[in-house]
């Protein structure tokens, strides 16, 4: 995982002043290729972020009369400080992201290791493994809604077969509902981690592994002390991808629990949705969005900084 800008790739390795501004033909072509996406990105990312930022200093509701964009300074930001529900939701999404990504990584790496050792039918297995990941989250939500149904759901039925009688649905109890959402997320995204790790494992040169074996390392030691360190750059990217996804978890929760029972599964994005589209307080919703965005960015930068500083990713 070499981090390199595509523009620098084609430029000649000269350090002269002219060369700094000289664009090779390849670079020009690259720019032409990139331009449409740059324009689109500007339109769909930079403009909305700028607009959201101005909205955070306004009072704007689509249903409450008299709130049509009046400037209110930092009132929205002040409101956040005392908004317990938001902080609780943020805490919940933090826990959700940590648990989901952690479990996904553990199981995903194990899966990848197993897949890496077998040769017969690996392609078929990896293709099958992809199924949960390519399903639409909404479909997954609807599917598990039936599976976890208290009266005629598959889950309770299977549990009953092995002798565990659950009197209530798994989604009807605050703690099991949260656990169920984590489990569904693991089911959906573990294959993604497994596939990335499998690709990483296949890119590892044979020699260090052989050397370790000759030195008398057992399978676990080879994996833990030789293979895993070499996989770390891949792992870091996989975790970053998944964490960025998990932080904005919405679809499945919206369909399965609507944030309930009580507030047990109210994740930050769901709270944002409620503020913006149930209460129609768009300005406050934008403010919450800004805070979320900043926190996620800060976490990503911190994570990246630590890993790069530790030399895991070479610049």
């Amino acid at each position: 995982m070499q981090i390199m800008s595509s523009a620098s790739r084609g430029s000649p390795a000269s350090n002269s002043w002219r060369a700094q501004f000289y664009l090779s033909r390849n670079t020009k072509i690259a720019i032409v290729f990139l331009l449409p996406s740059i324009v689109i990105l500007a339109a769909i990312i930079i403009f909305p972020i700028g607009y959201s930022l101005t909205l955070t200093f306004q009072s704007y509701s689509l249903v409450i009369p008299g709130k049509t964009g009046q400037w209110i300074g930092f009132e929205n930001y002040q409101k956040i400080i005392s908004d317990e529900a938001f902080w609780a939701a943020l805490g919940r999404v933090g826990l959700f992201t940590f648990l989901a990504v952690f479990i996904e990584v553990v199981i995903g790496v194990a899966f990848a290791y197993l897949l890496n050792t077998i040769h017969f039918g690996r392609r078929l297995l990896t293709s099958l493994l992809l199924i949960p990941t390519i399903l639409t989250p909404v479909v997954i939500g609807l599917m598990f809604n039936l599976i976890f149904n208290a009266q005629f759901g598959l889950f309770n039925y299977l549990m009953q077969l092995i002798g565990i009688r659950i009197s209530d649905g798994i989604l009807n109890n605050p703690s099991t509902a949260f656990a169920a959402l984590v489990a569904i997320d693991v089911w959906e995204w573990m294959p993604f981690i497994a596939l990335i790790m499998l690709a990483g494992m296949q890119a590892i040169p044979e020699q260090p592994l052989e050397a370790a074996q000759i030195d008398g390392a057992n399978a676990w030691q080879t994996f833990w002390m030789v293979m895993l360190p070499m996989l770390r750059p891949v792992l870091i990217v996989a975790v970053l991808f998944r964490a960025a996804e998990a932080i904005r978890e919405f679809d499945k929760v919206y369909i399965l629990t609507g944030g309930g029972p009580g507030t047990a599964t109210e994740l930050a994005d769901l709270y944002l949705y409620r503020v913006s589209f149930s209460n129609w307080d768009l300005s406050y919703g934008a403010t919450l969005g800004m805070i979320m965005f900043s926190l996620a960015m800060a976490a990503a930068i911190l994570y990246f900084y630590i890993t790069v500083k530790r030399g895991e990713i070479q610049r």
Partner: protein
Amino acid sequence: MKNIISWPYIKDIQEVLKRGAVILISLILIASFTACTPSATPPAVPETGLETEAATAESGWSKEYEGTTLNFIAEATLNTTILKELLPDFTEKTGIIVNVEEAPYDSLVQKVVLDFSTHKGGYDIISMPYEYLGSFAENGYIMPLDEELSKDAAPVPDFSTDDLIPSLWEASTKWKDKIYGMPSNSAVMMMFYRKDLMENEQEKAAFQEKYGYPLAPATTWQQYRDIAEFFTRKAGDTLAGETLTQDFYGVSLAGKRHIATVLEWFNYAWTYGGGLFDSSGQLQVNSDANIKSLEYWLELTAFAPPGYTSATWDEVTAALQQGTAAQAITWADTAGSMEDTNASKVKGKIGYASIPTLKEGDKKVAHLGSWIYAISVDTQNKDAAMLMMKWALSKSIQLQLSQKGGLPATISAFSDEELNEKLPYWKQTMVSLEESRIRPRIPQWGQISDILSEQLSRVMVKEVSPADALSEAQKQLQEALKDALPVTAE
């Protein structure tokens, strides 16, 4: 990427690509510009009613707006489906074409609010839940119709405002002395119960022995509770002489964190003498009456099917249809599906009655859930839209709608003899409509429903006590409604 770029024919395609990029960008720009301009500006429609008489067709319906296209959005329900089936009749009579869009509750509200707030005029006429009346009226999103109704612009043979059910007319269309719409259906809550079980001699005797009074459809909450307890049985027990193959429950109720839960609770709160606001318009969410009503409801959950904490009106309907629950407080518009052989195992076994009260002889209350037709202020086709409303509420259309299983909003349809004979819930629906009461229609309704659904759900999963949950709701609502108190118009 490198390989592609050093491809031998690169020089030729370079030029092509450059041009391609320019064209692509231009297309994107054009597309984004066109997306910003108001789409589909409808043709101007003559605004005067002068030629009305002359333009009147043989059917008695005005053909003045022939060729006009109306965009109409309504909730995806049976009523809308039926109305859609009947619309060719309207097009034939008036020459007006109607595009119907169907959407579920949440999505309908969102679409409509976004269309209204951007003044795009995408919808000429909408069917909306009445709790948004205050908000839409005060924001100037929908048109007051008083003048239109009084001058009686276009002659409509089969329609009269006198035929509209008064409670619907008053409660769901009037906001601060102005009329903003007309009722589009007559959803109201009532009590559903298993008539066959109540009439079973064996059960009657057992009930009399256990509770000391005869078994009959509940009229008080105490009776409702006793009946629920009495009929809650395990698989293998006997019910009305038959051995049960699965568990049977005394009630079915909605307890999910969902608007269904909030709407059902209002019935208990109101009959207990509670409500959201006191007589001076201040919040009284944590009043004794409200707490008592919630404690009572929580007590009922002992006799409800598992999973009630994730149940909405859909699950309540299903439990009744599947014959696994003996009673429920639910929506009259699901009664049709109880009597539908394809969907229901209890056809002909369900009785319909008014919602019980705290004490015998108390004033009956039923939660009204009617939707209303309203006209967007941004429409260019106001008169055509008015005509469609009147057509939809005309006697013959309301009758046809009822015959096909929909819920009408007219007295004539409810007093139709044939329908009364055929539909066991017909009479009761009309009675419940007369007893009906409305939920607050203030612009802050969204927040009210949101806060209450969270707190009620916490009670249902026994996370907090009713008193604590309602105190928390009171606190949150006080903050959310601080600019709106006291609430003088509900």
